[in-house]
């Protein structure tokens, strides 16, 4: 068998799949919190750890998280980057994102950082470097989605 082949010799296919994901009790409570401009963390009284994103069980003690606590609306950047080559359906690049540990919580949660001048990437990265402080800012009309809030730098 012998036939010349080239990269444009293809069969094209496109797959569209749709899903409706049940949010459940834990994520549902968190998303309800967003609607009232609160960030709710689940807490385990045995380990004393407060989790964001929230969990049904403490994954250290394997006991149920038995209370909800309001996370502080300020926190510390633990890891950050400026996404320069973005992708479809997200905010237009260049856009800073970070994992932030909100005050009173034992894990970090990801979101965008607003209002950072990204014209000089080096300077922008210094501004959002790990250790910097941010505060949570909610959109005017929260809809119960993680994009209801983002971070802004604390001066």
């Amino acid at each position: 068998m012998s036939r010349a082949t080239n990269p444009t010799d293809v069969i094209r296919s496109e797959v569209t799949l749709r899903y409706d994901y049940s949010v459940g009790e834990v994520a549902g409570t968190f998303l309800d919190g967003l609607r009232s401009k609160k960030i709710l963390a689940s807490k385990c009284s045995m380990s004393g750890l407060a989790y964001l994103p929230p969990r049904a069980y403490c994954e250290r003690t394997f006991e149920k998280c038995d209370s909800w606590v309001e996370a502080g609306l300020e926190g510390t950047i633990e890891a950050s980057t400026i996404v320069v080559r973005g992708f479809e359906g997200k905010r237009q690049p260049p856009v800073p994102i970070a994992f932030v540990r909100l005050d009173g919580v034992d894990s970090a949660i990801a979101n965008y950082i607003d209002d950072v001048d990204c014209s000089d990437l080096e300077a922008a990265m210094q501004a959002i470097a790990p250790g910097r402080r941010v505060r949570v800012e909610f959109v005017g009309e929260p809809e119960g989605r993680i994009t209801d809030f983002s971070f802004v730098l604390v001066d």
Partner: protein
Amino acid sequence: MAETVGVISTYQTDYRSQHPDVTFVEQAQQAAVGALHAGNMRPDDVDAVVFSLAPTNFMGVADADRWAIDYIFGAGKPMFRVHTGGATGGSAVHAAYSLVRAGTFRIVMVIGAERIAETPDAQAVLNTIFDLFYERDMPLSTNTSVALQASAYMQRHGITQEDLAQAVVRQRWNALRHPQAHLKGEITVGDVMASPMISYPLKLYDICPRSSGSAAMIVGNVEALDSFQSRPAFLNGIGSVTGTYWVGDRLSPTADIDYAEMSLTDFSGAACFRRADIKDPVKEIQVVELYDPYSLVGYVQLERLGFCPRGKAARLDSEGFWDLDGGQVAVNPSGGTLCSNPIAITGLARCIDAANQVMGTAGGIQVHGVRNALATAVGGISQFHNVTIFGEDHVPDREEV
């Protein structure tokens, strides 16, 4: 009494963006035929097949292991699919090793193929590995998650982008002597620095290519080695570990695992070294094939595996410590994952490149006097990590003696 396990034969195709001459399954078949020929074996000599297959969304064919059954001579044999993301190939080797070691099968073939470049949407597929309620609305991907890791690691150790660029320069140079490598060439730190920014501080050249290709490794017990291979690479140690799904749980003073430092590696490395009886890796291991899809990721693993102190791997690179010629340990003679990343089989390729060094069949990248070679694989957002050690002599692990 556990069986001794050794590598009988290996095969890998060239890694390129496209292989328009064959389909996915025909590509897998090339590896099956290649490994069988290399071992002077027939399909009937293989008792079971482990199929190394990562997310099938990359090619849009659900569970393509099924599609491949006939092509890889799987019909009539037990067949197992293994999937731990980027760690898949290493996990597949561990599965085959365990099946032979337990005495369940005499000879097992590990095989897989990857065609990631047949979709332009690979980063979109990788976005779906993040949590759909809390993370997926952000531009999180493998690229951006390693950029996040880099921000913390580089700040902590005072490492610069130029420091990281050395890995790319060294490995593309090594890859010039490895016919199967995808990216190769003589480049400079300046070239890496001048490549387009993707997610700060990672630039295009800090990031692996999207590679297509196939690979296979056949392993067997002592009886099989007596029949088919006079100079095997013995599988002397494996170690693997799984860490938390949540990236944010690894970025806290109360964390069990340190995301910036990939401290998950401590556990897989220790388990593997204990089994292979390795006490001083720099003295006892001559070749390391790391799963390093980003310039940062090889350095971090060298540090965690005990080849050098924390924060020092990039600095030692500038002293030639990891060079293929004249280094203390040859790190990624193949060019590593920075030069070729066929995701489903990258961990398998690392194992093949390590085993070939022990068997003396590594061709242009052969290092002299290799007694032990180590391979790693990393999956998900560093949720899976595995380590494998191949040796020229069989080392009975502690559980056997």
